[in-house]
């Protein structure tokens, strides 16, 4: 099967610092692919590089087999590939209403039918039409993240780059957002690349995943293998142990 998104030998550097060091992944059409690894390992940079938002110095990114320019992305690209950032505060303008925030992508891409799409998008992300004229600074974190997802979905992309989309949310909202993301992926045959620090979330959402450390992919495995403990790298094993919760050292001593 041809990869919907492929990154080959990707390198991103900030001055002398290698944020991505020869990274390759390929994600099949309709697949949900996970990225895990410690903070600073380059997960966001990889998504940003795909979205044309990071200084790629080497390697290649292809969309449906077609190589993209290292930096420039045209409007047609963003019609097909949308990104949801990890930070629901920074990604939405606080002084805009939900309505304005949802109108904007429609205007950029010249999509008609705004009224119907806005109501549908609000409904799809579980916020009623009563939220339509609220300002984003009046929303809580979970509400903002739903708006960020609605904003990405409203122009009906094929690929969603999801950077920790639920890590700032409480459990009840996370479950709803994960169900929402699974539902729209199934309904619209979307392809996902999803970053999360929660292995429970990643294995729930993704078929395969890559483990990143210091700008490199150190292990690729299926969610099934991870859950069953069929892990080759010590680094991945540590992530597994840590995901079991806090253990008080004093209590052991």
């Amino acid at each position, binding site marked *: 099967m041809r990869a919907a998104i492929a990154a080959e030998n990707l390198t991103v550097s900030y001055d002398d610092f290698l944020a991505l060091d020869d990274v390759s992944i390929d994600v099949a059409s309709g697949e949900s692919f996970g990225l895990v690894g410690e903070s600073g390992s380059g997960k966001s940079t990889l998504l940003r590089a795909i979205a044309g938002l990071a200084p790629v110095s080497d390697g290649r990114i292809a969309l449906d087999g077609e190589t993209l320019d290292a930096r420039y992305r045209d409007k047609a690209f963003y019609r097909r590939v949308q990104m949801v950032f990890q930070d629901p505060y920074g990604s939405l303008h606080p002084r805009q209403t939900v309505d304005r925030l949802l109108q904007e992508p429609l205007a950029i891409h010249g999509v008609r039918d705004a009224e119907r799409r806005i109501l549908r998008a609000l409904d799809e992300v579980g916020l009623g039409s009563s939220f339509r004229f609220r300002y984003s600074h009046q929303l809580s974190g979970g509400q903002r993240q739903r708006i960020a997802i609605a904003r990405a979905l409203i122009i009906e992309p094929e690929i969603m780059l999801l950077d920790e989309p639920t*890590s*700032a949310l409480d459990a009840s909202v996370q479950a709803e957002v994960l169900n929402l993301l699974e539902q729209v992926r199934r309904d619209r045959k979307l392809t996902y690349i999803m970053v999360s620090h929660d292995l429970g979330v990643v294995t729930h959402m993704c078929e395969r995943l890559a483990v990143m450390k210091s700008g490199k992919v150190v292990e690729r495995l299926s969610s099934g293998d991870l859950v069953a403990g069929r892990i080759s790298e010590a680094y991945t094993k540590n992530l597994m142990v840590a995901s079991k919760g806090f253990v008080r050292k004093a209590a052991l001593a």
Partner: protein
Amino acid sequence: MNPMLTVDDLRVSFPTRTGLIEAVRGVSFTLGRERLGIVGESGSGKSQTGRAIMGLTPAHARISASKLNFDGTDLLTAPAKVRRSLRGSRIAMILQDPKYSLNPVMSIGRQIVETLRTHENVGKREARDRAIAMLEAVQIRDAGRVFDLHPHEVSGGMGQRAMIAMMLIAGPELLIADEPTSALDVTVQLDVLGILDKLVAERGMGLIFISHDLRLVSSFCDRVIVMYAGRIVEEIAAVDLANAKHPYTQGLLNCMPTLGTDRHPLPVLDRKPEWAA
């Protein structure tokens, strides 16, 4: 023993064009030198509770309490100057979003150094060394490099840890940590909890730990307050969380994806109007 903090019938509301939003509706609890968790879904009033204690309630909001007392000081009637000095030294808050609390035009290191030097009379050299040591304590590798970076040049998780370092360097007696680790990956998360844990155990700091992660809270805190729609619906010892009585608490525990359980879709909360009554 007198509690360090007493909160009684705290209320915070926001007048808006479409009516009054009641963010906190009569919250009461006390805190000693312990780890108190506050959990609840988005919008339940956790942050506004923390901010009210910290004195960071937005100016246009209405705030009232029959008691809001920190170590003998009535926080609601204390002069602004007293509150500011408490906030600078004895009470600290780690905000949910580091981007809002770090100054974007100042290097991370300088911010930590300035925080330290407003509380303690230390020389430049020592301040720098201690700031770097604190960055290392929150598991920032290459702390010397990060010291000179600006907030926009680091990842979200690293910004969060820099923020934690800045709050801890003043050595507060009461720390309100609002989702301090939700942007961090699991290993670092546990390191940060280890640091907070040590401050409670060794220095007798009181900690209010606001989080949406019930599993984490149950493994870390002593007591847990569960909030829904601005109210406390249940208060429970952390070790008993699995036997929570309230259906809301049970629902929160149930809806988390865990390794090896295959539930598609995940169970979601069936919210009952009477929970908000």
